[in-house]
């Protein structure tokens, strides 16, 4: 029987073969080609998307410096402890890890255990862990790996923490950052985009379980560090402001915080902006005021949270720009300036004060603080007396329209534009909804700064414009922004908003205000040698917030120095003194003076003593011979002098300068306690061509004293000669007489 395939079988075999190859394999190849070539990109993108993990690398936040280069805010590396609980294999491992980590990180064991039960790759345990804790975590990781074979569950990721080396200094200005390194207040908030930098990314390939794939697939895009910011704030100035404010708050029992702002009158740069009580920037969420803290703790539990958040909001609030107040008599400076500028008064114009004044018929009389009246006074005296009736009259002469025009020109109706968040707007009369529209009685009280509200910053900027020749400047805090390599990205140039008053009016105002500071109502704010010009203010808040049954007051003082060539302006403002004193002249002026006394020498502002002052300044050295060294030293300090002692004895055997010699205030008395020590010598330095302050400082460096001769109180003085020549050897403490002359004209010798 024949077995071979038949023709039909062969034909059908070929059909089967063709079907499998053409229809089957053909379809497969078509499908594969379609997927790999046409949809390939899309599918590959999807695949890559699920394979790659994108890890954010924090960028280092920029540093904030003060104007002298001191660090105010800086970021340092800390660590974030993260759990990957998906890798736990059993409950024992969870218990071991949660117990260990809870102990190291100071967390509750139950919390960690709870987190360890999640089937996740990333569960944050603790942020901002310092490196010593991190080392302990690393040790723990090694330990459990070795002893319990637990791996991959604990991760440490770098993080940054913000440090504020000066603590509470400049708190309201600098501000602070939140948990995610984002600026929340102050400069940190305002310049967040500059400080933040660009976070980097690390792209790694992961398998479906989230661990790294063994092959090399990693791409790093480095983080770009944030920019550094240099402030116009000088931390020393800031600290002086804060120190004296704090003291003032204590001394005068201030109920509602205090503010001091110092402005460079020629540029608008803010040299210091203090709001007290401040808070510690390293711990901004802690209520700094112990009294408030205690009050919150005593509240019912459900109300604590709200009270706490209110207290923190109040604590962070920048009173210098965020709160408005009635400027009170300080505003008379502006009223006076506009009256002079408009020519409705001269310095010789006279005004009669009878203790009260009726601005127009049918209105109740408005009293003066001097109930007996100031009598007849000229314009300068009216300001020095801070006489309300006189200023009502001046205001009337200016007129409502002009008054509002100047009000706007001085910048009160607009935000100053300072680079800080939370600046408030003024509240001015707006009869019929039109700002500036006021009744005559409104004008009367507005003339002496009542019933309209402005911010302290607006006030000091207006006074600055009066001081600097009439230019209203835009205040600023950031001097420059530099990138992480030090290239300057942005440099702030002073912005003159407008010329408010003429230079001559400005000059006249400076003179009047200096007079006021020397012998007028502002004399408590005067500092000998520094030609202070200023004006006090006591504004009625017409509201009793502290609940003592009396309306609250704000005591303020605004001034500048030196009067002949103004450099800095300062406003000091105490909200609600509850002590015995509440007038600006009693509360704010002394604080203003002590601030100026510290800050002006620090800033290198030249002293210009009047002859009268110079006389007062020189101290006659007493005899300390025979006294015990410590007793002598005490005595010298009490006399306002410095001391220096040589030798090993306990008793002073001789002294330089000898008793009866005149030495300048703050000079040095050298005490010798044994014979051998008298041989100590110093080389006399060149003391010529220096200003008085420089000469004084240089002499002090060499432990020498200088006696000033040829001084006049006007103009800038430079030393021209010294009685003991440069290079000679003298005993420490020797008084060298240095001759000064003004350099305002070469022919004007002596």
């Amino acid at each position, binding site marked *: *029987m*024949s*077995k*071979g*395939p*038949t023709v*039909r*079988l*062969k034909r*059908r*075999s*070929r*059909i*089967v*073969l063709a079907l*499998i*190859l053409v229809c*089957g*394999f053909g*379809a*497969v*190849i078509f*499908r*594969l*080609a379609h*997927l*790999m*070539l046409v*949809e*390939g*990109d*899309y*599918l*590959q993108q*999807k*695949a*890559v998307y*699920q*394979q790659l993990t994108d890890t954010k690398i924090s960028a280092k936040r920029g540093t904030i410096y003060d104007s002298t280069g001191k660090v105010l805010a800086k970021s340092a590396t800390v660590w974030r402890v993260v759990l990957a609980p998906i890798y736990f294999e059993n409950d024992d491992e969870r218990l071991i890890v949660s117990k260990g980590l809870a102990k190291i990180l100071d967390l509750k064991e139950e919390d960690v255990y709870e987190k360890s039960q999640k089937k996740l790759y990333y569960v944050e345990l603790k942020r901002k862990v310092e490196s010593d804790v991190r080392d302990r975590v690393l040790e723990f990781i090694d330990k459990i790996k070795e002893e319990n074979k637990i791996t991959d569950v604990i991760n440490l990721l770098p993080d940054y923490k913000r440090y504020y080396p000066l603590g509470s200094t400049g708190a309201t200005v600098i501000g602070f950052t939140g948990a995610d390194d984002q600026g929340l207040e102050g400069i940190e908030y305002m310049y967040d985009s500059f400080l933040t930098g660009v976070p980097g990314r690390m792209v790694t*390939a992961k*398998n*479906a*379980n989230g661990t790294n*794939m*063994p*092959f090399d*697939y990693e791409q790093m895009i480095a983080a770009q560090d944030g920019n550094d910011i240099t402030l116009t704030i000088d931390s020393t100035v800031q600290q002086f402001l804060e120190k004296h404010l704090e003291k003032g708050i204590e001394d005068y029992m201030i109920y509602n915080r205090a503010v001091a702002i110092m402005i460079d009158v020629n540029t608008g740069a803010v040299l210091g902006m203090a709001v007290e009580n401040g808070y510690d920037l390293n711990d901004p969420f802690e209520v700094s005021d112990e009294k408030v803290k205690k009050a919150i703790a005593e509240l019912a539990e459900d109300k604590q949270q709200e009270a706490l958040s209110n207290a923190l909001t109040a604590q962070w609030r920048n009173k210098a720009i965020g709160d408005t107040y009635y400027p009170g008599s300080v505003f008379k400076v502006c009223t006076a300036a506009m009256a002079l500028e408009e020519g409705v008064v001269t310095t010789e114009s006279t005004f009669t004060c009878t203790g009260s004044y009726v601005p127009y018929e049918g209105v109740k009389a408005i009293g003066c603080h001097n109930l007996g009246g100031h009598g007849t006074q000229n314009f300068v005296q009216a300001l020095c007396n801070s006489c309300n009736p006189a200023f009502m009259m001046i205001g009337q002469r200016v007129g409502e329209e002009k008054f509002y025009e100047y009000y706007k020109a001085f910048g009160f109706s607009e935000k100053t534009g300072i680079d800080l968040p939370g600046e408030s707007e003024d509240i001015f009369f707006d009869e019929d909804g039109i700002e500036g529209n006021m009744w005559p009685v409104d004008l009367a009280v507005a003339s002496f700064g009542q019933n309209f509200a402005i911010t302290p910053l607006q006030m000091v900027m207006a006074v600055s414009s009066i001081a600097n020749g009439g230019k209203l400047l835009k205040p600023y805090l950031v001097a420059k922004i530099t990138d992480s390599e030090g290239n300057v990205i942005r440099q702030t140039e002073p912005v003159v908003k407008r010329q408010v008053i003429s230079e001559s009016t400005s000059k006249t105002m400076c003179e009047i205000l200096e007079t006021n500071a020397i012998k007028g109502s502002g004399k408590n704010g005067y500092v000998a040698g520094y030609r202070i010009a200023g004006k006090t203010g006591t504004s009625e808040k017409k509201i009793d917030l502290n609940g003592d049954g009396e309306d609250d007051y704000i005591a303020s003082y605004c001034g500048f120095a030196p009067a002949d060539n103004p450099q800095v302006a300062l406003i000091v403002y105490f909200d609600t003194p509850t002590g015995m004193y509440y007038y600006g002249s009693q509360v704010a002026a002394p604080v203003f003076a002590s601030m100026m006394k510290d800050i002006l020498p620090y800033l290198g502002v030249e002293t210009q003593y009047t002859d009268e002052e110079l006389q007062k300044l020189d101290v006659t050295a007493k005899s300390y011979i025979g006294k015990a060294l410590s007793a002598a030293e005490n005595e010298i300090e009490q006399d306002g002098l410095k001391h220096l002692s040589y030798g090993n004895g306990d008793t002073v055997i001789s002294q330089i300068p000898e008793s009866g010699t005149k030495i300048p205030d703050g000079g040095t008395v050298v005490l010798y306690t044994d014979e051998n020590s008298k041989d100590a010598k110093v080389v006399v330095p060149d003391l010529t061509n220096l200003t008085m302050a420089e000469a004084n400082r240089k002499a002090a460096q060499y432990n020498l004293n200088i006696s000033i001769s040829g001084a006049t109180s006007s103009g800038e003085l430079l030393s021209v000669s010294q009685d003991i020549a440069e290079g000679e050897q003298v005993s420490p403490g020797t008084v060298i007489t240095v001759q000064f002359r003004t350099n305002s004209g070469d022919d004007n010798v002596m």
Partner: protein
Amino acid sequence: MDNYYTVRQHGAINRYWAAAVDKTSQKRRPASPAKRPSGKRPSSSRPAAPQSRQREQYAQTVNKRRQKFKLFSARLGLDMPFCVLIVVLLVVGLIMMFSASYPYAYYNDGNSYLYLSRQLKFAVVGFIIMILASYFDYHHLHSLSVPILGFSFILLVVVLFLPSKNNIHRWVDIGLFSFQASEVMKFALILFLAHWGSVNFRQMGTFKIGVLPCIIIYGITVFLLYLEPHYSCIVIITMLTGMMMFLSGVRLRWFAIAGGLIVAGVLLMAVTGMLSYAMERMDGWGQALIYTTEGMWQTTWQTRNSLYAIGSGGLWGLGLGQSRQKYLYLPEPQNDFIFAIVCEELGLVGAIIILMIFAALVWRGITLSMRAKDKFGTLLGIGLTAQVGLQVVLNMLVITDWLPNTGITLPFFSYGGTSLVMQLAQMGIVLSISRTANIEKV
């Protein structure tokens, strides 16, 4: 050679003719001798009988020598191209299986070489079995076909009572190794249909002989596989049965009827909800890349990641061993979806080359079977070869989401020792067929 060829043909024709006359005269066509012998060849061969006998003697000596050498000479008749193609696929398959299983084995068992070492052992065993099987005279399978069929039915019943995995009864575990009952069934069915078709090749055009027995056996198989359940195997069994019947000469109208019945049957099952398991699997069919529900997204995870892998390959691929999708994204990348990893690593070019090797294997297997000495050899060889080709095509259509994810392995590539050994043993039978097919070349 030319000489022998003529002799052989004549001899064959003589034998054929003798048998034909014998059979027809006895049974079916008493009148046909008058018809048939009127053809040229019988009449021309008859007078040449003495010459023919001489040559037949020569042929018998050759045949004796063939039988003598059969067990000893690998060269003798073995179809070298087919054998080489199998070896190439086996080696490439092993390499790709290793590459695909490497991370999976690493993460699951801690030993990246686990699957390779296991598969390698089976490959060696399978290769030896293949060579042995190629020496085995496949004609013995004639008598074995019915017992094997019976045995595989028993297996299919037994497996239903064995412990299940996810309620699926597929695996028979006999300690040393385990295997799928359906694998045996596929072979048994091809074998039986080849046997039936070759023995009854004349009557295959009838319903009683050509269709009914095949349909009954097919029906029982499908029913048992449905109980397992193993739908993908049903698909293959259906295609194989249809193909074997087609080859055996079943009339085309039956296929038209069968096609209609299948469509109707599927519709009926769909209506009655019996296809629940398969439908569940088919739910995500074709929408692996579209997010509808979380559950569906999880269901289509494997298919989706297969598509991602294939798409990532592009024209040239990511390079051998460079697949990313095998890092636990594509579940069990060494099994059904191994070709997705091949595509990712070797690209379209590599995939087409491998497909071409498979195509060449199918081509060679079918053409050599067509030269077999008997219809049984032809049918069996084509059946076994086509099974490989069908599985390749179905597997690829599954991984490319043109067919529902049903669990069809890729021959020589997918991990699975017993399956590989059986695959190779079946290829051994094709090689055995090739020996008889190529005998004239000796």
